[in-house]
Structures are given as structure tokens and as C-alpha cells.
């Protein structure tokens, strides 16, 4: 079926044909024809954000919580450049997005026309792929191909830059029978030989550990189900990166908590002391490995990743399996079952005893207070009071993000949206907007810091406009807490520019936006205040006044290995623990 229509109509038709229900955008001169085409239909609902960065983060939250491709529409020039941080965020965290940008008419490209920017040039390094559409004949193919590229292989953002004359031009639209790229075919099935070799290593392991990441989430719910099956079959312990939380239930006895810079004692020591590491969909990021030359020195390593370039990039592994997590895990479960190997029960028992010893250190313990709300306590209470609900959590970036990761227990995938790779302050509020749209009935909470929240605060208007009852739960410590913590540890407590001066009154701010503001500074009243927030069917900003000096532990300081992590009780002399060279690093 082919039809004649304008480029702008093709854009909207392709979105409909892809089953897109929501797009996040902001209009401008170079996309007016597309906005006009949107006006004439109802199937694709446009969500008007208040800043293009917000559009991209909202699309990220939408995508990560639903498994669908997030879609963004912005104008040329400043619209496109405002989207760059969001695109980079999506690239780092492998979030599938299609971002449509307007461009000046083809004959003006290169003339420094009004609102012209070299969008494909600027976004080449922060997209998985990008296109400049120069001929109307190419537009239908590119539109559909972009969805394929964004979602297949290692997911990522794709930009389609569409000059205004192409939007007006008329051409033939055909919906391709499939939207595959003509040559791009990521490998999804793992090498059978390597999978057998991996199972053989696992069968002999005495001190194994699963180390899993965002790849399991990206691979889809099936991958999480298969991971659970394999972990239970083997009886091995499992830890997860920040991005992978929820793939395996946090309450399960086999789960050691998050690993890495602010990971648990037991997770990091298990990584350090294991004899076999099974990495599923994680990428040996520097926040995970700590000092590389001391990273898990005595282990053999298996690495499953859909991106061949991740394998042996940071850490040399013994078996690298290129493939999609769900496919590879399915094969691993099958091979394990059919081999039904005789594991070394005595050794595994000893390993678990060791791990339980580390667990006994209770590394997340903190000093409780009657007078001030400890930030950890606030997250704990938030978790306890929301855990029986259909809850999704987003975060900003800083200490509150790490406390959320440590104290909020995720039992299911796609429930936890955070900016891991780029660490983008201002991510959480727009992401919550996207999540709430994808899950209108769910409880969506942005666990925020008072500094981060101001970076994309304008998106409160979006939440109000579309009646999205998101909850912004600010752990207000009056500091850029994570910066203050590093200054305390590394710079002699000279808190240069990290105090959040001249803060707005968040309760009044919420009200000014048309939402509801709640403030609490008393531990005894916290539960009631949280309940009030949950029961308010409108957007809420919760100003939770917490201890200003609390630091986030455990912590692997700069220049240290996993087995040199700091726990809460040594906090007094922490400054002396980091050597001069460690101070050079972030």
C-alpha cells in the first residue's frame, strides 16, 4: 500500500505504524509542518515539555519503564542542542530513543541560517546512529530503520534531522514489510561452544559470583526470568550494578546487594575473592572495578554482552560471549539442566559462610537519630510504605541516588530509572513524567536532591498540564551532598561552592506550579507525611529535611581496591585513607 503525502505526514504516519502512542517535544519554526500533521490526528499524543532536555529524559523514563522506544520531537538549532545532554545520557545507559529534529531548508544548510546548527555533526558522538534526510524518497525508510537501529543490538538513541523543505515536499509513503536496516544485524545468539565452556567452568567453581547489569533489563523481562532461573539452579550468589537493579529480586537471600563504589561490603568482597565471575550484561565500568590492577585478582571471568566492543575493553576475560542476554541465558539454563553437573557442594557451602560473615558486618547500618531525619531512614520508610504498591522510582544524581539504590529494594525489572553512565543531575523529574505516562495508575516517585531538582524543575508544569500525579521526594540536605562528601574526604573540608544557598521554599514552589507541597523535618512525623504524599492524587513535592552532614557509605575511595573499602565506622579518619594520587581522580 503506497500513498502520496508530505514529509511531515510521513513522519506522523510512520509513528502511528510503529505503534507510538506518546511523543515528547517542543515546537519551533523548523518543525511546524510536523506539528501541523500532529494536529490532524489523535493516535499519537504529543506531550509538551518545558525544555528539550526534559523531553529526552522523559522519553528515557518512558522507554526504560515500558521496554518501548521513546520518541522525541524538537526544533532545529537550540531545540537540538538542548537535547544533547539527554541523548548522551541515553547513549551511556543504552536507552532506545528516536529523536526527530527539525533543520533549516536544504538549500540553506551551511549558510549559518537562523536557528541552523550542524545537528548530525553535533550528535554524531552522542547517538548510536544519526541521519540527515536530504531526499523525500529516503524519508519512509529512514523513519522505520531508525526504530530498528534504536531497539536492536545494544539499544541507543537515533537522531533523524529533517530539513523543513523535506517536511513540505510530497512523496510516496510505503510501510516497509519490515523495518530492518539493510545490513545492520546484531548477533543475538551466543556461541554454543563458548556457552558449554562457560557452564563447564561454572560446574567446577568453588567461589563463584554472578555480576549482572543493565543489559539484562534492556534484554527484556524474559532475560530477568531466565537469570532468576539460572541463579537459583546454580545456587550461586549474585550482585548487580546500579543499572541492573531489579533484574534479580533484592529481597532474595542469594542477592548480595549492589556492588561498586557505594556497593555493599559483601558484594565487593565477593567480587574480590571469587574464583569465577559471571558477568551478564554489565560492562566493567570504573565505578564498578575500582583500581583495575587489583580488580578480582584470582578469578576467571565470563562476560556476556551484546556489544562485542565491551568484551576485553576494560578487563580481560577468559570467555567472552557476544549475544543478547535472554538468548544466552536460555542456552545456559538448558545446558546446565542437561549436564546437571556435580557442583562442589562443600566449597560452595564454605563460600556462602564467608559471604554471610561479610554480611554480618551490616555495612549499610547508620546511626539513627530522634531529632533529625537521616536520609537513609527516609528512603527506608519510603520503601516500607510503598512496597506493596505498583511503584516506580526515578532519581537525580548524588548521595540521595546512592541511598535510593542501597535502601529501596527492587523486586522486578524496569522499576528503577536512574542516570548511571552520565550521572546527569536533572534526570529524575522529567524521567518520572515519562514513567507516569507509560504507567498512568502506578505510583511514580523521583527520589531527588535539593540541588539536582532545580536543574529541570520546570517539568513540574508538564506534570500539572497532563495531570501526572508524580511525587518528587527531595532529600534536602542543603548541600550538593556528594560534592560536599568528596570535599570533606579530599579537600580538607573546604566546601567550595557546594552549599545550596538561596534555596526556594519547595512547598510554595509546588503550590506555585499548582501542585501540592509537603514538608517534614521530624522523624516521628515522617510516616504520616509520606502516607499523605502517597494518598494525594496530584503532583507532590515533598521537602524532606534531612541531616546535612551525613555521608554515603560504604565507599571505595579513589586509588583503592574492592577489599579496601571504607565503612561507616571509620568515617572519622577518612581523609587520611586516600593518598595524594587518589586525590587527583574523580
Amino acid at each position, binding site marked *: 500500500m503506497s500513498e502520496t503525502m508530505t514529509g511531515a505526514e510521513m513522519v506522523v504516519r510512520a509513528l502511528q505504524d510503529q505503534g507510538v502512542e506518546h511523543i515528547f517535544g517542543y515546537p519551533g519554526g523548523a518543525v511546524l509542518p510536523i506539528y501541523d500533521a500532529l494536529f490532524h490526528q489523535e493516535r499519537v499524543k504529543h506531550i509538551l515539555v518545558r525544555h528539550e532536555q526534559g523531553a529526552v529524559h522523559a522519553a528515557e523514563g518512558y522507554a526504560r519503564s515500558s521496554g518501548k522506544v521513546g520518541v522525541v520531537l524538537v526544533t532545529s538549532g537550540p531545540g537540538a542542542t538542548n537535547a544533547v545532554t539527554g541523548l548522551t545520557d541515553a547513549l551511556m545507559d543504552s536507552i532506545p530513543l528516536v529523536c526527530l529534529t527539525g533543520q533549516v531548508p536544504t538549500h540553506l544548510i551551511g549558510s549559518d541560517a537562523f536557528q541552523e546548527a550542524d545537528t548530525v555533526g553535533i550528535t554524531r*558522538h552522542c547517538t548510536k546512529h544519526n541521519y*540527515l534526510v536530504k531526499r523525500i524518497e529516503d524519508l519512509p525508510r529512514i523513519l522505520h530503520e531508525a526504530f530498528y537501529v534504536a531497539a536492536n543490538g545494544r539499544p541507543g538513541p537515533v537522531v533523524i534531522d529533517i530539513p523543513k523543505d523535506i517536511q513540505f515536499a510530497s512523496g510516496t509513503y510505503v510501510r516497509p514489510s519490515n523495518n530492518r536496516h539493510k545490513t545492520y544485524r546484531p548477533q543475538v545468539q551466543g556461541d554454543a561452544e563458548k556457552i558449554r565452556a562457560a557452564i563447564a567452568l561454572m560446574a567446577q567453581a568453588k567461589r563463584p559470583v554472578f555480576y549482572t547489569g543493565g543489559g539484562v533489563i534492556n534484554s527484556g523481562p524474559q532475560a530477568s526470568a531466565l537469570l532468576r532461573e539460572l541463579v537459583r539452579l546454580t545456587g550461586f550468589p549474585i550482585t548487580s550494578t546500579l543499572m541492573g537493579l531489579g533484574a534479580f529480586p533484592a529481597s532474595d537471600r542469594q542477592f548480595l546487594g549492589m556492588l561498586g563504589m557505594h556497593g555493599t561490603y559483601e558484594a565487593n568482597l565477593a567480587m574480590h575473592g571469587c574464583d569465577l565471575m559471571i558477568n551478564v550484561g554489565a560492562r566493567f565500568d570504573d565505578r564498578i572495578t575500582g583500581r*583495575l590492577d587489583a580488580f578480582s585478582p584470582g578469578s576467571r571471568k565470563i562476560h556476556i554482552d551484546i556489544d562485542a566492543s565491551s568484551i576485553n575493553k576494560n578487563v580481560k576475560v577468559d570467555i567472552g560471549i557476544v549475544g543478547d542476554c535472554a538468548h544466552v541465558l536460555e542456552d545456559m539454563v538448558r545446558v546446565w539442566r542437561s549436564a546437571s553437573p556435580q557442583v562442589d557442594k562443600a566449597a560452595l557451602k564454605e563460600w556462602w559462610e564467608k559471604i554471610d560473615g561479610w554480611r554480618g558486618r551490616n555495612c549499610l547500618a547508620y546511626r539513627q537519630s530522634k531529632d533529625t531525619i537521616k536520609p537513609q531512614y527516609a528512603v527506608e520508610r519510603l520503601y516500607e510504605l510503598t512496597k506493596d504498591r505498583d511503584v516506580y522510582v526515578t532519581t537525580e544524581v548524588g548521595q540521595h541516588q546512592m541511598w535510593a539504590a542501597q535502601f529501596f529494594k527492587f523486586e522486578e525489572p524496569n522499576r528503577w530509572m536512574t542516570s548511571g553512565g552520565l550521572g546527569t543531575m536533572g534526570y529524575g523529574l522529567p524521567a518520572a513524567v515519562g514513567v507516569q505516562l507509560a504507567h498512568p495508575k502506578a505510583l511514580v516517585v523521583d527520589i531527588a536532591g535539593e540541588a539536582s531538582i532545580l536543574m529541570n524543575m520546570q517539568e513540574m508544569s508538564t506534570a500539572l498540564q497532563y495531570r501526572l500525579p508524580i511525587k518528587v521526594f527531595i532529600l534536602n540536605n542543603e548541600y550538593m551532598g556528594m560534592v560536599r562528601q568528596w570535599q570533606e574526604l579530599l579537600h580538607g573540608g573546604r566546601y567550595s561552592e557546594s552549599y545550596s544557598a538561596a534555596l526556594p521554599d519547595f512547598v510554595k514552589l509546588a503550590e506555585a506550579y499548582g501542585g501540592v507541597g509537603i514538608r517534614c523535618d521530624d522523624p516521628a512525623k515522617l510516616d504520616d507525611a509520606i502516607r499523605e504524599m502517597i494518598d494525594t492524587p496530584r503532583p507532590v513535592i515533598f521537602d524532606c529535611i534531612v541531616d546535612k552532614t551525613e555521608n554515603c557509605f560504604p565507599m571505595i575511595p579513589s586509588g583503592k581496591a574492592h577489599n579496601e573499602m571504607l565503612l561507616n565506622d571509620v568515617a572519622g579518619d577518612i581523609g587520611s585513607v586516600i593518598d595524594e594520587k587518589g586525590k587527583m581522580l574523580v
Partner: protein
Amino acid sequence: MKSHYSDAPAAEPLARHTLAVIVDNEPGVLARIAGLFSGRGYNIESLTVSETEHEKHLSRITIVTTGTAHVIEQIKAQLGRLVPVHSVNDLTVQGEAVERELALLKVVGKGEQRVEAMRLAQAFGARTLDATLTSFVFELTGGSDEIERFIKMMTACGLVEVSRTGIAAMSRGAEGM
């Protein structure tokens, strides 16, 4: 250096590799590849590109690069994940490849110097593409070393300008890509 980031790797032997990369001949593909090398800090010694299969819109990019074994593996994997890249072929691991380059040299001079330039060009098997009473343009095709030597010799004979194509390469033997 003790660091939370990885230490700079100990000096490992560098190897020179010639890669033949088959790509869709679409706008921006060269910028993508060049940007990958600059963005990730890889070396490019030589890079040539030209459409080789017109109907299929395929181009062949020949890249000569140096790096440790680990870096070379990363370069190949990173090239492989670019969407318009069809295949990455390491001609160096497939055995010593045939490598050729073309150079044009303009030499200006009179009298003895001019005779010497002519004699050297003959010795190297260069072709004379243009001649005036005071100048020559020579063409030489050969390996990079040979071209280097020719340029060095010509420097003494009034060399004023050089233009080189960069390397075109192909594996030896009956097997095609």
C-alpha cells in the same frame, strides 16, 4: 599511579595493522570513522576511501593504524559496531598484504640538478606526467618506503610539492573478501 580509574597500561609492543573496512557510501560515514579514531584516541597513519561497488553504494576504506594488540582489537570492535559498517578486515593478520601508494612530485630546477632529477626518476621507475623547461611532475607508485626514499632523493633536486594518495591494500592469494 594508584587510581580509581585504571592505571595507564605498561608499555606494550606496538604493531602496525592495515584494515580494509567496507561501508555504505552514505553521507557522514567518513566523519563517523575519523571521529571514532579521534574520540577514542587511536592513531591513523593513513586513510583512503573510495567507492568500490557503485550499484551497491559500497565504499572501501583502508586504514593503517598502530597500537598494542589490545588497542587493535578494540579498534576493530568499535568499527564493527558502527551501523553503516559492513565488515572490518584485518589484512595484517591475514598475512602480509599487498600495499601500494601513488605519489605526485613537482620538481623545479635547471642544468645539472634537472638532469639528476630525470636520472633518479628513471632509476625509481617514475613516470613523467608533465614537463616544462624548468619543471617536472613525476608519478611514482609503490610501497610507502619506496615513496619515502624517492621523496628524500628529490628533496636535493628541487622538490617543491608532494601529493600522496595514502595506501590501497589487498590480501595476497586467491581468496577474496
